[in-house]
């Protein structure tokens, strides 16, 4: 396309830029079974080792630095759920009137995380009267986050203080939204660790070594590599990735 045509075509959309660089090659051979190239709104909140007693920061105080996955670890108590935990169990629909971009409503949304789980889950993710959870890591079975495309689900987990989810598999929209919001880090393992770990076990996730260590049982589990979502995550999400590749202009301070 001629330069004049290009500028004319772009004049209708100031949110795009004509100085476009080819986007990074994203391998079609994803190691993450159900992954897609995905985005996130904020750099991940917990990009250093997190003591499990630390409460989550509010939406307004999220970290603005991006650290590569290889240097990241998560540490804390785990909360264990099983297969097909859908978005209505993560955050029931009656709470979807809360708008997460409002800091007060963000906190309130977090206080309802996992409140939709049936009574067979005797241990509550968030104790009565509390806004935050003491569980840093969620361990799940297959098809975690199935159901709605609502971003409120990963946001609620992150707002409650969860840092990562380790599941056998994810529903694809939840996986994409987890990375796009930066609220929780979605990881996969082919081992059915939801049968081997118990709620309250102390665990560490070492992303650089792709492993989860259960300190309570002394067992270690291999985690799947993040696969072709890597370039988007490393860029800092879809907006940062698009800016890096020239798809949209850089933000002015």
């Amino acid at each position, binding site marked *: 396309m001629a330069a004049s045509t290009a500028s004319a075509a772009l004049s209708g959309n100031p949110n*795009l830029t004509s100085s476009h660089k080819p986007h990074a090659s994203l391998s079609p051979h994803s190691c993450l079974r159900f992954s897609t190239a*995905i985005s996130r709104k904020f750099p991940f909140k917990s990009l250093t080792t997190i003591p499990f007693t630390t409460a989550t920061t509010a939406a307004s105080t999220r970290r603005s630095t991006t650290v590569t996955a290889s240097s990241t670890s998560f540490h804390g108590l785990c909360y264990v759920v099983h297969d*097909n935990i859908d978005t209505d169990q993560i955050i029931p629909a009656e709470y979807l009137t809360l708008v997460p971009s409002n800091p007060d409503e963000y906190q309130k949304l977090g206080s309802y995380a996992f409140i939709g*789980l049936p009574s067979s889950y005797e241990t509550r993710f968030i104790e009565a009267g509390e806004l935050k959870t003491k569980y840093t890591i969620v361990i799940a079975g297959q098809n975690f986050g199935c159901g709605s495309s609502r971003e409120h689900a990963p946001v609620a987990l992150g707002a409650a203080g969860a840092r990562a989810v380790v599941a056998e598999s994810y*529903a694809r929209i939840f996986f994409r939204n987890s990375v796009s919001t930066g609220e929780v880090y979605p990881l996969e393992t082919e081992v059915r660790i939801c049968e081997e770990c118990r709620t309250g076990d102390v665990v560490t996730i070492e992303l650089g070594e792709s492993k989860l260590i259960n300190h309570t049982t002394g067992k270690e589990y291999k985690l799947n590599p993040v696969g072709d979502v890597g370039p988007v995550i490393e860029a800092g999400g879809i907006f940062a990735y698009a800016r890096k590749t020239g798809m949209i202009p850089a933000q002015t301070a």
Partner: protein
Amino acid sequence: MASSTISSNSTTFIKKDVGLSAFSSSPSSFSVPKTKRRNSRKIVSVMAPQQSPRSPSTTGSVKTAMTMTEKILARASQKPQLSPGENVWVDVDILMTHDVCGPGSFGIFKKEFGQNAKVWDREKIVIIPDHYIFTNDERANRNVDILRDFCTEQNIKYFYDIKDLGNFKVNPDYKGVCHVALAQEGHCRPGEVLLGTDSHTCTAGAFGQFATGIGNTDAGFVLGTGKILLKVPPTLRFVMDGEMPDYLLAKDLILQIIGEISVSGATYKSMEFVGSTVESLTMEERMTLCNMVVEAGGKNGVVPADSTTHKYLEDKTDVPYEPVYSDEQARFLSEYRFDVSKLEPLVAKPHSPDNRALARECKDVKIDRVYIGSCTGGKTEDFLAAAKVFHASGKKVKVPTFLVPATQKVWMDVYSLPVPGCGGKTCSQIFEEAGCDTPASPSCGACLGGPRDTYARMNEPQVCVSTTNRNFPGRMGHKEGQIYLASPYTAAASALTGFVTDPREFLQ
């Protein structure tokens, strides 16, 4: 090629693990309108450079055959060729959002593009309040106000507003359930890419287009750029042949499929529906089929456009469109074949859409209520089907039966259209005679629970037969409630007996 025949609920079911083998998918013989798709030329220049064309090799053309989904995404990304697993920036034809996800999406758009930024195309954004409308919940009402403010500020062309919550009929712009409204208002067109901040956006695949649900962040990006980064999904092909028995509906077909492949069996895959049975389905029934692909984990569902599609669209849109079809040598991950004539009415028992059972096997399950509504089971034909059962029985319902038309048009149809074979009676007359609740204001209603004062919400741990799409714990309100997903036929039959009931008791 090896194939296995699986006995499944008396249905002949054949699965072929085709390992990306070729299958024919020729369109039916009909006249395709000679229309050209209006490609947006606005932002072509920001795309990554196209690969240079490859010359044919000695073994024949290098160009690989593509499925419908691959073709749509290839065209929308200005690529001559795409294969499953490739990641591409795709041009979006329509972006839809509603009152639950709109406010968050707008917030992200403003944060990333600036408080005064303009959307990429005010005529390609469709905003439909539908989830939490008829409620006194202050935040829910505020969220509709946020939609209105954004639409005014951005001069959005397609905003289906509601201001007077006391009487929906005095709001001429108000439609109701977004997925049904999108179709009725002509926003669904073959060959296009439609995204929505709702997982059941896949409903629009019934029109031979790529349609899928996205989150707020992706929607915020699309609002500003008109583009989204997508991975091309592989395609599962479902071939349904045989004459559809008069006691079955598309809901039974999709419950059969989900029961067969499981709630994660199509995760990040496209589901393409073909065969003589599919060709015989109306547009609304095709919408039911595609609506629930997400319940199998599907990225999208798609039905090839044909004369039925074009006839439906005739009076709904004047936007040119160009259908696409899977090539004869297109590669499918697996092919599933069904002889629909042998299928029986089904339900999905609590607490999963893949917990399939024959309706007749659940005849001892006592129920407390019936719900007919939603994007899945609240369309005009769904109410006509329910009315047919009520009329055939001549009896009154034994349990509270809630009726929530999906849109204002459906509501009017319920009150005005004569039910075929019922002596000129309308659905509303038949429902009244059967003792059902008066049809409610059109919205998503209790399908997803919602605020406590939502009409027909399950606030007690009851047992419900519902024409909706999900039955995970808490979906319709109370987390100890039990939901049996069923067709409108089965729902109506169950209302008449107070137990889960096979509709053949009244239809044969």
